[in-house]
């Protein structure tokens, strides 16, 4: 058989492949000063000295490579973040945007970014005044002023389809009495209006008026290249969406970052997508990726293979345990038997938090007994203040019998478990509490059984639980199919605990999980047992307001936009109303109300808090050091958070 007939087609195919691979637009290298027109003129990275090591086209000693958390950008050419979702963690959020205010949850404060001070409201919260920072400039040299803020609010309010369009309908009037002051008049009192401009992984960002006022159709405007108020400006990006590169502005000192913290050290920052955790591990071992958030297993692999790698904590449990999100289990409280608080409490007491933690994260977590995360600020203002109440909190088991469920010894038992696994664990009790949590709920299956029996549940001959009507008690725990996510870890740990207790529980691993949660088509779900609080401010309004009875859709199968548990309580409604009438700057009153609200959630247990979200963050210190690890918390540690820009001035090059 002759091979000749195949030779020509094969060559043609290879040629076609080469040509087709060239077909996408060039990686766009963006010139700094151009405003509206898309510029594709290649401007190569300045030639470094000969001995400079070049990695992926950038001088390595001046470049920081970070992993992009949300994956490949869907619309890499589009930087118009006022429309839809834009994979902003490719550097837009962290390096280009400056909000009015930024949450700093690790330090426990709100940073005045573009704003010069916290917002000031009038007495009935119908007027908000914002003082702006002076001397801030857009990356094209135009000064940032109150006109930009006024224009943004007016434009977003007037344009249907823009993010925050609905929220701004409450604005009656907005004006700038001077260049650096903005006054917003509201149609209805709203003491939390400013939080739309408070960046906690997203907020309403300010548009450059001099660009957007010339745009006819803002919805289709690509905003490429974008202007920056942050210390970096877009350098280039991959049209396929796998990487985006940023370069330090020459006038970095005219940005809030520069004014607050000084000059960011890396000249270039490149965000790269690694779709497979194994690739990210290899990249870190090869010193091609400085900051990554991985799975616990991948974190261990990097620490083993790369002597220069470090995690947030230098020793076990390595992970970031100060994240402002609480993980756990949310009950569908409109669905029997989860509409019964004693059933919910029985399921809580049927969990042994030690074996649960071992199954979920091999013990590398911070258990949290409240439906709010164990960030430093909340440990101080909520966990510590509530400790006496928690110790005294009592459940009524019926027949005059009571039970105190709080277990302050749980973190010490988890530390013992970790020691038994051969990990190095602190000896100091205070350190143990800071590492593993302040306490949890007792493992009391006998008490759980009493609570169930009190409500008509019985055990079958096989020891399994039967519902009050005598049918077997079966339910599912719904989760996201991503095995690296805490939803998934919580699901399988809970299923194991409850099966051990004698309930026929299954995991429902479902691609459509977010829709099923939204429509109340689940029994128990692991998609956040409470809405995330700010973390860097004591206000729990946004957590509590999601349980507001005014929003609850009582018909399961119809979408519900509050917390997925659909739980509500008249006492919580009162707390929400009281918070709404409390000034954001009156922190003592806010804490008081927060404690009262948290007490109600303990009594009612609409969801079981298990542990504060942990991030398996790994830094390679081969090129950059002085990362904000647990021993040196000067900033929140994630590279995908907007505060990354505030961390960059503190990093130090190693000179390699």
């Amino acid at each position: 058989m002759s091979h000749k007939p195949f030779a020509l087609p094969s060559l043609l195919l290879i040629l076609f492949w080469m040509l087709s691979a060239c077909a996408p637009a060039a990686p766009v290298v963006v010139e700094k000063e151009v405003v509206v027109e898309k510029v594709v003129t290649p401007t190569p990275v300045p030639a470094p000295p000969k001995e400079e090591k070049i990695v992926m086209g950038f001088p390595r000693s001046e470049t920081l490579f970070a992993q992009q958390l949300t994956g490949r950008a869907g619309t890499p050419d589009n930087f118009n973040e006022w429309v839809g979702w834009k994979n902003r963690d490719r550097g837009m959020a962290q390096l280009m945007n400056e909000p009015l205010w930024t949450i700093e949850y690790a330090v426990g404060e709100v940073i005045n970014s573009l704003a010069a001070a916290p917002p000031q409201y009038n007495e009935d919260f119908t007027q908000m005044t914002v003082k702006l920072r002076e001397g801030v400039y857009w990356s094209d040299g135009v000064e940032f002023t109150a006109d930009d803020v006024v224009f943004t609010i007016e434009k977003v309010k007037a344009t249907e389809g823009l993010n925050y369009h609905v929220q701004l309908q409450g604005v009656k009037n907005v004006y700038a009495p001077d260049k650096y002051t903005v006054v917003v008049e509201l149609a209805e009192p709203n003491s939390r209006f400013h939080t739309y401009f408070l960046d906690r992984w997203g907020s309403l960002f300010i548009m450059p008026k001099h660009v957007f006022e010339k745009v006819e159709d803002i919805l289709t405007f690509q905003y490429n290249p974008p202007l920056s108020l942050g210390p970096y400006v877009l350098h280039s990006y991959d049209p396929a969406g796998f990487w985006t590169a940023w370069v330090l502005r020459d006038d970095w000192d005219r940005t809030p970052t520069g004014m607050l913290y000084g000059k960011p050290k890396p000249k270039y920052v490149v965000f790269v997508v690694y779709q497979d955790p194994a690739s990210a591990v290899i990249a870190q071992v090869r010193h091609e990726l400085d900051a990554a958030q991985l799975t616990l297993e991948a974190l261990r692999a990097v620490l083993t293979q790369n002597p220069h790698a470090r995690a947030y904590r230098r020793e076990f449990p390595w992970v970031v345990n100060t994240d402002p999100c609480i993980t756990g289990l949310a009950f569908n409280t409109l669905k029997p038997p989860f509409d019964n608080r004693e059933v919910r409490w029985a399921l809580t007491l049927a969990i042994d938090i030690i074996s649960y933690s071992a199954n979920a994260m091999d013990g590398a977590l911070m258990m949290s007994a409240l439906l709010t995360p164990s960030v430093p600020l909340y440990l101080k203002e909520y966990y510590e203040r509530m400790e006496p109440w928690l110790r005294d909190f009592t459940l009524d088991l019926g027949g005059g019998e009571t039970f105190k469920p709080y277990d302050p010894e749980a973190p010490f038992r988890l530390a013992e478990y970790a020691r038994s696994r051969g990990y190095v664990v602190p000896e100091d009790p205070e350190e143990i509490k800071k590492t593993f949590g302040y306490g949890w709920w007792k493992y009391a299956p006998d008490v759980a059984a009493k609570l169930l029996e009190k409500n008509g549940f019985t055990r079958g001959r096989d020891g399994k639980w039967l519902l009050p009507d005598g049918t077997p008690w079966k339910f599912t725990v719904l989760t996201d199919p991503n095995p690296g996510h805490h939803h998934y870890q919580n699901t399988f740990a809970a299923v194991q605990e409850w099966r051990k207790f004698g309930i026929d529980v299954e995991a429902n691993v479902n691609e459509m999980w977010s829709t099923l949660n939204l429509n109340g088509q689940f029994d128990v779900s692991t998609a956040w047992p409470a809405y995330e609080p700010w973390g860097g401010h004591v206000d729990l309004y946004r957590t509590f307001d999601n349980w507001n009875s005014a929003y609850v859709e009582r018909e399961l199968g119809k979408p519900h936009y509050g917390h997925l548990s659909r739980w509500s309580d008249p006492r919580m409604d009162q707390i929400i109303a009281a918070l709404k009438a409390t000034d954001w700057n009156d922190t003592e009153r806010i804490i008081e109300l927060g404690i009262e609200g948290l007490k109600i959630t303990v009594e009612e247990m609409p969801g079981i808090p298990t542990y504060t979200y942990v991030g398996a963050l790994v830094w390679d210190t081969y090129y950059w050091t002085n990362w904000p690890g647990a021993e040196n918390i000067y900033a929140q540690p994630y590279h995908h958070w907007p505060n990354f820009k505030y961390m960059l001035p503190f990093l130090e090059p190693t000179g390699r």
Partner: protein
Amino acid sequence: MRFVRRYLIPRLVQYVLVTWLGITVVFVIPRLLPSDPIESMVATLQAQGAYRDPAAVKQMVDTLRDMYGLEAGLLEQYLSFWKRLLSGDFGPSYFSFPTPVIELIGRSFPWTIGLLLTTTVLSWIIGNVTGGLSGYFTGNGMLKIFDGIVMFVRPIPYYVLGLTLVILFAYLLPLFPFGGGYTIGAQIAFTWDFIKDVLRHAFLPALSLSLLGIAVNHQTMRLIIQGVKEEDYIRYAKIAAVKEQTIFSRYAMRNALLPQITGLTLSLGQIFGGALITEIVFSYPGLGFLLYRAVVNSDYNLIMGITTISIVAITTLILIVDLLYPLFDPRIRFR
């Protein structure tokens, strides 16, 4: 005329019907799923951590539903879809609103077609040649060794094979990059340097796809040719002292190739669905990930865009093969 009336026209009618039916089914099925593009969008926006009070979210959903035209009835949406399709427009992506679907597909399409077309065709050619030789010349020692290698490679799950190649040739022996379509920061230009860069990046994904493709084609062809070898006409040719090479190439391979050509056609059609695992393991740009994200986010327009192209490609290729079959197999012409 008889060929046109009895063979060509029925197949053309069948082609149009199957294409229409396929597209219609794909239009309806995503709308039966419990998910919804607006709800996915809302879930993503909420996952950002930015504050949106529930009342505002509800109003936002209503606004977006109206803006995307999802308030209209199913029939109205269907008619509007065909109207747009016939003018070559799939509409905007809901999840990446307002980017047109055709632009999203156009961005990923060249990478997928370049990688999968080449590897599918090459592995088909190599696998069929080696499988044919191995099935016909069963006593050859070298071919037996090759059979052994194929038997070893074939059961390896694709993800494991891809990852093994990355570890071997990108990490332990750093000969190739372990991901991406080209070097980060590289300037795309039609220069030899850039072409080399693209080929270097494509080598491992292409190798992984080719290895499995060759193994599958090899084993299938080997089995087919072993059956053909026992046919009477082969025996007759041997008795008639026709040269062994001639029997192999003209009689055995030619007949055994017919089902393989059909297989190739279907494989080529499936190219348009992309290669999701390849794209994940090698961070390679392509249609697979786009389609996956479209399904997860219920991005109806994007699902319709990709699957319509895929359906049209498969039915068209099958039509072409149907029309070409009489050239390969004279028996079809005489029926």
